[in-house]
Structures are given as C-alpha cells and as structure tokens.
C-alpha cells in the first residue's frame, strides 16, 4: 500500500520529548544541552526500542528474509514438477528470462500501462482535486463519492468493466459496432485495463493532490489575479510549483503501484493477447509452469525495476522524494 509518505522530521516534537519533561515548550531553546544520558532518557530509549521491535521484526521477517530467499531460489534450477532435478544454476534463469520475448513483451506492456495510466490519473486527479477543493456546492458529497472507487475491491471493479465490455452483455459493448470484442484485441484490451486502473486510483491521486492544494495560500492567488494573471497562469505559475512536493509524492507512489498491476489484468484478460504485465508473468511461471527458479528470477527482476524507478524519481526530482530528509517541505 502506498498512501503514506511521511518522515518524522528531526525537528518535530518527537525529539524534544525529554527536554519537555524538564522545561515547558516555551523554554524549548534550552534543548540540546544534555550530554549525559539521564536515567529517564535511558528508559525512554528502551521503551522506544521495545515498542518498535514487533513492527520491525515482522516487517523484516516477511520481506527481507523472503527476498533474500528469492535471490537464492532464482539461482537454482527448481521446477516443482521435477523436484529431484533441483540444482544450482548460476545466472541461467536470469539469462533465460532476459532473452525471452515473453519477458520483454510483459515489460513493455507494464511500462505502457504505467506511463499512460499515471499520466491520465495526474490530469484527471488534478481536475478532481480542484473540484473537491473549490466547489461551492456539495463539497461533502463529492468528497464522499470519490472514496468509493478508492475503497472498492479491485477485483469487483474489474468484473464491472469486464461485463460492461463483453459483447451482448454489456452496456458499453452495446455502443460499439456489431461484432467487436474489445477485450480480445491487444490495443483495446490494454485501453480497458488502463481505464479500469485510472477509474480506481484517480481518487487516491486526487486526495493527495488536494492535500497539496490546501497548502497554496489563497492570498497569493488573489494577489496574482489582481495583477492580471488568468486562471491558466495561476495554475501553471503558482499552484503547480507550490504543489510540487505533493505532486512528486503522488506520482512516485502511483507509478510504483501501477508497475505492479495484477488484479485488473487477471480478471479482464488473464493476460491473453499480449496484455500480461510482469506481475502476471511471474504469477504464471509460478502457478501455471510451476517453475520456482524462473518465477523467482522474474520476482527479483521486478524488484530491481521498482528500485530503479524509485531511484530515478529521487535523482531526477531531488530531495523532496519521500524518505530523504525533507527540510524544505514546510
């Protein structure tokens, strides 16, 4: 899940807990002058570690260990149909995946779905955010209904789209010329997958952007308007630059989320007709081909791809990426 992008700032109230115990917040400048760990400070450290331990242990146990195990599995010849043949295979699995047309097909399909849906989501999400932020009527109502696509189960929504586009059955397919079956053609099926993704996740994007919009001071916009800036200029010269941190966070999380697209494709096309994503490919290799070695190699490659995307965002767009020290965000 990816709703969250926060970094308890070192300047936050958290670090001043000990000082506050001795001095009221008004006298906070006195902090920092405590070289020796007092008994209370030690107790605080112990409590902090103790409280965090369960979360840290379970997160590491369920992710770090398996991903290490996946790397090890990916170096083995390990087909569940022939368990006796299990043997160390070096990078043979990676070579097999990276020279396979299926991998590159799935990779490009995933990239297309990711880029197109995130781009549409950003534009639509921004419009939606402006409506929710500015509307004069029914603000509560709009904010309530946009949560429905966010909350609805992806599989359920995918079925709704699947039935809608099934010839003879669906209200949307009825609008198409006789005899067309949009889910069986690569281009139109990808378009429907993107539609399903966009529908489901635009509200999330809009909510993150709306939180960014709230940080743009009205006074500034009013001043710009007085100076003769039109709506478009106000959007591109003031609102968007001021929202940059919120935009980057929303784009980063949605990009990484879109890259792992699975549910919609599984329901809409089962990955047939060249619509499978890398996640579908990994799943199929595991549960249809029963090849743990190849499946794990795909898992590791996806992991690397996601890490590269995250790095790219951080390098390209600078320090405002989540996880870095975001001093300039306030």
């Amino acid at each position, binding site marked *: *899940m990816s*709703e*969250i*992008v*926060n*970094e308890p700032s070192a300047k*936050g*109230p958290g670090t001043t*807990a000990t000082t506050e*115990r001795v001095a009221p917040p008004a006298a906070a400048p006195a902090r920092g002058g405590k070289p020796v760990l007092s008994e209370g*400070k030690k107790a*605080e*450290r*112990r*409590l*902090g*570690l103790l*409280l*965090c331990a*369960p*979360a*840290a242990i*379970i*997160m590491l*146990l369920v992710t770090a260990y*398996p*991903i290490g195990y996946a790397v090890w*599995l990916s170096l083995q010849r390990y087909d569940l149909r022939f368990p006796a043949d299990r043997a160390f295979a070096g990078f043979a699995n990676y070579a097999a995946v990276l020279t396979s047309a299926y991998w590159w097909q799935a990779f490009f399909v995933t990239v297309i779905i990711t880029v197109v849906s995130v781009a549409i989501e950003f534009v639509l999400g921004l419009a939606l955010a402006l409506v929710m932020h500015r*509307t*004069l009527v029914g603000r509560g109502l*709009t904010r*309530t209904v946009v*949560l*429905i696509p966010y909350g609805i189960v992806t*599989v*359920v929504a995918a*079925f709704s*789209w699947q*039935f809608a586009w099934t010839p003879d*059955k669906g*209200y949307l397919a009825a609008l198409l010329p006789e005899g067309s079956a949009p889910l069986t053609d690569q281009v139109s099926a990808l378009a429907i997958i993107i539609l399903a993704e966009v529908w489901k996740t635009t509200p999330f994007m809009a909510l993150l952007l709306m*939180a*960014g919009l709230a940080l743009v001071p009205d006074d500034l*916009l009013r001043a710009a308007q007085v100076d003769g800036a039109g709506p478009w200029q106000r*959007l591109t010269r003031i*609102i968007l630059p001021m929202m940059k941190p919120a935009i980057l*966070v929303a784009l980063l999380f949605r990009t*990484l989320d879109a890259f*792992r697209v*699975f*549910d919609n494709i*599984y329901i809409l096309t089962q990955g047939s007709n060249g619509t499978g994503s890398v996640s579908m490919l*990994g799943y199929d290799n595991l549960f249809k081909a029963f090849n*743990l070695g190849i*499946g794990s190699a795909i898992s590791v490659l*996806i*992991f690397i*791809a*996601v890490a590269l995307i995250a790095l790219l965002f951080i390098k390209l767009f600078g320090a405002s990426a989540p*996880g870095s020290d975001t001093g300039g965000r306030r």
Partner: protein
Amino acid sequence: MAVSTGTGAGRKGWWAAADLLVLLYALIPVLWIVSLSFKTADTITDGNFIPRSWTVDNYAQIFQIDLFTSALRNSIGIAVISTVLAVVIGTMAAYAIARLDFPGKKVLVGISLLIAMFPQISLVSPLFDIERAIGLFDTWPGLILPYITFALPLAIYTLSAFFREIPWELEKAAKMDGATPVQAFRSVIVPLAAPGVFTTAILVFIFCWNDFLFAISLTSTSRSQTATVAIANFTGASQFAEPTGSIAAAAVLLTIPIIVFVLFFQRRIVAGLTSGAVKG
C-alpha cells in the same frame, strides 16, 4: 480556482455540473454491477443498464454455494484479525516514532517506506515456497502475516501523523504526577489517539479486504480462500450455466462494507489518507 469573489447562480450551476460529473464517474461502474446482480437469468445478457425484470435469486443462490460462504467467512476473519494486529503493532511503533527519542528510528521509518513501495509479486514465489515448507500455506496465519507486513507502513505513517497532533501537555502532566511513560501512554494517549487509531483501522481493513495477489497465491482450498479469490474462480468453475449474476451478487456483497465505511467516516478517511502525505 475560483478565487474571485464573483458568485451567483451561474457559477453555482457550473460547480453543480462538475459535481454531477464526479458523481457519475464514481457511481456508474458500481451501479452497473448492482444492476447485473438484480437481473434475472434470461435478461442478464440484454446489455441494458437498468434491469428489465428484477430478482433476488442471484443473492439467494450464492449463499447456497459453500465455497462462497466459507470464503466470506475467511475474508472477514482474516481481514479483522490482520487489522487488529497491524493497528496494535503499528500504534506502538508510531507512538515511539512520534514521541520518543531512540536509536534506529530513522531505520524503521526507512524500512516502512521501502515496504510501502515493495512489489508484492516479488514476495509471492519465496513466500509460497517457505509457507509450504513450514505448514503455513493455505492457512489463515499464512495470509495474515503478509497482510500485517504490508499494512504496517500504512498504519505507522498514518498514526504517527495523527499522534503529532495530540496535545502532549496532558502526557507531561501525567508524568509530572508520577506516571511512568507506559502509564502515560496507556491512560492519557490511548483515549486521545482513539480517533486516529480508528481511522487507521478502516484504511488497513480496506487494504486487507482488497487483496487478491496474496490470497490467490497463498491459498488453495476453502480453508483459507478469501472472497476475492472465490469470485474470480466463479468464472472457471461453472456450476451454473451463466455465472455473471452470481459474480455480480457476490461483488455487491463485498462492496457493502466499503460503502458503509465511506458514507459514515468520509471525513476521517480523507484525513487519514492525506495526513501522512503532506504535513512534513
């Protein structure tokens, strides 16, 4: 961007039109699946958006499918247990992150962030192998563990954002009165933090309720198969001539809790989703 002070019916009319568009956008796919679930067997393929003849047979039918009722039970049980555990563990960690000074805080925040971005498919093959080896495959704990793991970053970030808004003077007062940090946590912070904790619980529940990839990979029988998987499998296992009605009815049932949460707790959910994102 209606910064200007111009008001009047015209402007309101435009906003109302925009609202209506949003309304249609959000509701049409949902209404369509609701409509399908009420169609009779012989009209389900007529392609009409509104049913020509209505029936509740589809609902009656799915409750006779053992696979679906057990899946619904599994879904509710697994989602509730995961939510409770993730929120309890997350609350402890978030309190420490928001309030206490201790080594390794940044590391924990970093790990949570990494997991929030983690491609879940990368875990499926190793977890599948590990869970088969230690007997967790196709059990409730086999799903609860990954759910907690992926819900924890969400819980920790949302909760620590909420916790930073709490008036801490009260905790200080309690400590001055001789309460230990643990006592201050239990009797002062917990009641104050309840709204944030509750919001987080809703978000985590939605996440667990929504999951499909782990559920379809780490379960195989009615023992632990969840409702999302059961619905997806209706298509293949063709007990009836036309599974569309059953799928639609099951889909509507899965949607009801979400609609209820959204209608009653809209403000909280929006606050929870955005709190972690912007306030630095």
